[in-house]
């Protein structure tokens, strides 16, 4: 049977629920440390273990961080919010309920802007609320066939914020851009390191599809606990396609929770709507409501740092960078800080900033991406980059050698001058030496010389390249070009412009 859907293009509709661990030193309701990497169950106490008789006490720093993050997401902060209990049984949830916020969250009605394919879009933030994390299960063997399971309660009570987006996201690329923007904002505001690989940021993805042009939402499914940008993108890609195929085949999408199997790249049904949890929320009687004054909120707002969008705009106006380049730099706070400090040390104004931006984007970010490193994991400092640029400006090394030196600095942390000296990378500017090399190159390439004789000016470029090669890139390119042309004119009697 043919349906209208078969002929139509479809549109993917995505909403994300993102959990971010707040970087407080102690847990949200007790004084236990939150330092990662500790031996299992060494950072626990009767409170976070839910022992009989104990009571939660809200960590003021966690509250302040949550407000800070919500303000950075352009949210309204509720003057009155409260905690609720979300009930379910699981061995890593010691109290049998999670203290969270339900109908009166800390913050709501925010937004962030993302840029995908040159287009800027605003993604709504429905709410931001504060809650405690659960522990972790470790299975000996596989989940199904393991003989034993162990519980690590260290993570119990680590403060989390949950950021719920509106269903405004339309593609895997937008989902990625949104997550990258959230991550940048968390890092800029200092509320979290938001390391995905450490579970400090994790996403649940709600996905539905509909024919292009339709405004009604389709039935959605939820993918739980995705912990990489790649998994989010692949999960959306697969699940949207799956849903559309169900619809094209005349079927109906079932509202359910699904698991994304990263190895196989497919989604699998976890539980249906009928088996959905009934969390039996009710107000947490052990914690008074959170009542905030305008002064408290404004004080936190005043302490907000410059956020990525503002920084990007400033780079455009202050340094004349393109919006695209500025965007590439600010998305990683550490890189942007590196860039700004380099600009300050280089002290050559907007022109210098542009040069630095090129180095940061084309070299630094490429090297980091290639090696899967963060800037902080390298010994590179702004002084390194600036020192190297000065060698280029002085003509001591060529820009091309600069790239080699730069890579060496990232690896070794040595100063540019030391690397240049140690590796003998000083630019060859000796006319006599270069002229001799030019003549050798001409002799070795009679066919190219013949091209030149026939009036092909580009032939000289090839020969200059050979000179650079012969000097392992150390020849001054301008000088080499002049000497090659002079030697060609001498040998052939032809001068090409």
């Amino acid at each position, binding site marked *: 049977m043919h349906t209208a859907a078969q002929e139509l293009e479809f549109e993917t509709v995505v909403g994300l629920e993102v959990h971010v661990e707040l970087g407080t030193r102690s847990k949200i309701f007790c004084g236990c440390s939150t330092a990662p990497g500790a031996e299992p169950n060494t950072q626990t106490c009767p409170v976070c273990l*839910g022992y*009989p*008789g*104990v009571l939660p006490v809200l960590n003021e720093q966690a509250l302040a961080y949550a407000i800070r993050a919500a303000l950075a997401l352009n949210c309204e902060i509720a003057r009155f919010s409260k905690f609720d209990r979300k009930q379910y049984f699981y061995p890593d949830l010691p109290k049998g309920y999670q203290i969270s916020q339900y109908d009166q969250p800390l913050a709501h009605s925010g937004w962030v802007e993302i840029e995908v394919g040159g287009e800027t879009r605003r993604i709504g933030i429905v709410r931001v609320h504060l809650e405690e994390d659960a522990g972790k299960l470790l299975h000996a063997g596989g989940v199904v066939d393991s003989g034993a399971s162990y519980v690590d309660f260290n993570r119990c009570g680590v403060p989390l914020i949950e950021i719920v987006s509106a269903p405004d996201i339309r593609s895997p690329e937008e989902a990625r851009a949104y997550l990258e923007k959230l991550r940048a904002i968390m890092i800029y505001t200092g509320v979290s390191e938001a390391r995905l690989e450490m579970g400090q940021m994790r996403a649940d993805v709600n996905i539905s599809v509909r024919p292009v042009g339709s405004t009604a939402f389709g039935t959605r499914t939820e993918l739980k606990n995705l912990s990489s940008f790649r998994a989010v993108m692949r999960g959306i890609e697969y699940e949207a396609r799956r849903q559309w195929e169900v619809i094209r085949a005349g079927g109906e999408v079932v509202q359910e929770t699904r698991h994304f199997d990263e190895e196989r790249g497919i989604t699998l049904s976890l539980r249906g709507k009928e088996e959905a949890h009934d969390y039996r929320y009710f107000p947490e009687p*052990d914690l008074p409501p959170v009542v905030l004054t305008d002064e408290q909120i404004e004080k936190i707002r005043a302490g907000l740092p410059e956020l990525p969008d503002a920084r990007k705009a400033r780079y455009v106006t202050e340094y004349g960078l393109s919006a695209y380049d500025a965007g590439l730099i600010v998305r990683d706070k550490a890189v942007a800080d590196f860039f700004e400090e380099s600009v300050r040390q280089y002290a050559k104004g907007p022109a210098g900033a542009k040069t630095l931006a090129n180095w940061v984007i084309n070299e630094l970010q490429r090297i980091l991406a290639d090696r899967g490193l963060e800037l902080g994991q390298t010994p590179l400092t702004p002084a390194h980059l600036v020192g190297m640029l000065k060698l280029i400006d002085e003509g001591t090394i060529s820009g091309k050698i600069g790239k080699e030196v730069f890579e060496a600095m990232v690896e070794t942390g040595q100063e540019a001058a030391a690397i240049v000296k140690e590796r003998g990378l000083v630019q060859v500017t000796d006319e006599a030496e270069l002229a001799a090399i030019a003549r050798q190159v001409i002799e070795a390439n009679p066919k190219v010389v013949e091209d030149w004789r026939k009036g092909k000016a580009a032939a000289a470029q090839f020969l200059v390249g050979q000179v650079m090669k012969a000097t392992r890139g150390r020849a001054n390119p301008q000088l080499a070009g002049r000497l090659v042309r002079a030697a060609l004119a001498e040998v052939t009697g032809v001068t090409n412009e």
Partner: protein
Amino acid sequence: MSATTRLSAARLNRLFLAGELSATEIVDAFLSRIGQVEPQVRAFITVTAAEARERAQRLDSRRKADGRDLGPLAGVPVAVKDNIVTQGIPTTCGSRILEGFVPPYDATVISRLQGAGAILIGKTNMDEFAMGSSTENSGFFPTRNPWDLERVPGGSSGGSAAAVAADECAVALGSDTGGSIRQPAAFCGVVGLKPTYGAVSRFGLVAFASSLDQIGPIAHDVADAALLFSVIAGHDRRDSTSAPNADRVAQFQPGPDTSLAGVRVGVPREFFAAGLDDGVRRAVEAAIQHLGSLGAEVREVSLPHVEYALDAYYVIAPAEASSNLARYDGVRYGYRSPGAESLLDMYLRTRRDGFGPEVKRRIMIGTYALSAGYYDAYYKKAQQVRTLVVRDFQQAFAEVDVLATPTTPTPAFRIGEKTDDPLAMYLADVYTIPVNLAGLPALSLPCGRVDGLPVGLQLIGRHFEEPLLFRVAHAFEKTTTHGQARPPLDG
């Protein structure tokens, strides 16, 4: 019977500080009394004889060494309800599910008792997880009323009330969620105070219904109740619901003045309706008349919504209980059913075998009341009723300073009389429950006897007006003899 065990806590403390009685002598006297009467009364789950003797010896040495700052309860043996956690001493909550649980921490009230020099003499029996009005729901054994061993001591702090009444301790701590201090105090002929919500830290009180629970004193007389209260009350940063001004409520010094001139006593007519035993009514009405004779101005008031309080309570308390009791899952401490084949099976068996019938009943009621689709009809509606009850009290307290009511509709009932009829059992707390819903302080004190069984007068005050309750109760006690009677227990 040793005369020592009949002394008040205040007097024991004075004699100890003066060097006339050593703490060791005091403890030995009470341990001996426990040895005599405990086989009949069975008030204790755990008697901490060794710990009490050791502590007594240390107190004696400290007194001899310098004798200063020993505390207002120094040398006084205190019994503590077994839902209050004690470091190194098993805490069972009257439940099998906490079998083997030895807390690594003390409740705040325990630290405060210790700071005041008190000697913990044992952990008292109770209805499992404080659910019940007779101490028959204990997971271990029922406690008996010292006035009539065929009758219940009330509940859920029945062990604490019976221990005080039987002179097995000088004073005791109980907990009161819907009347669990006042009702057994009334049944056992002793004084019991349910403090203002937030006046006493709940840290270390094993939660039953968190928004209603409060720890309070049980004593032979008002002065002792006030003394114990002054030690345990106060702000605690480990309890977020602890009131910042909790420290000031502890101010009461019993004096010779028994005049109640200027005190307006309200008598809520709804508390004297159907269901009230005639003998209890007569005793309470006489007591209220007596308050008038001391100069109080007595007038009738109305609390129109209290008739719904019991219904609201039996939604809210089980709802919170169902949540608070979810942590007993067999994973970290206490009882774990052996032989489970899966995780779910382990949860199910552990909870099936570990919890008694009343606890299961309330978990099911609470789970149902909170579940999707029923929340509005039950939990939310109950909270609305709660608000109406609070307003009733506010309006009454605009007219009067104290409310006087019966504590219970009947005197102590027979063991087994109501165990098959939970609804009848729930009615035992009909006069005490509204107070918990409103978070008010209320005190029960003996005001007479019916057929040899004690009757309790309940005095209800405004938030943090415990001192006024003590003043009124003290005046009543000083000008009557009801409080001096002791149960006819063989010893």
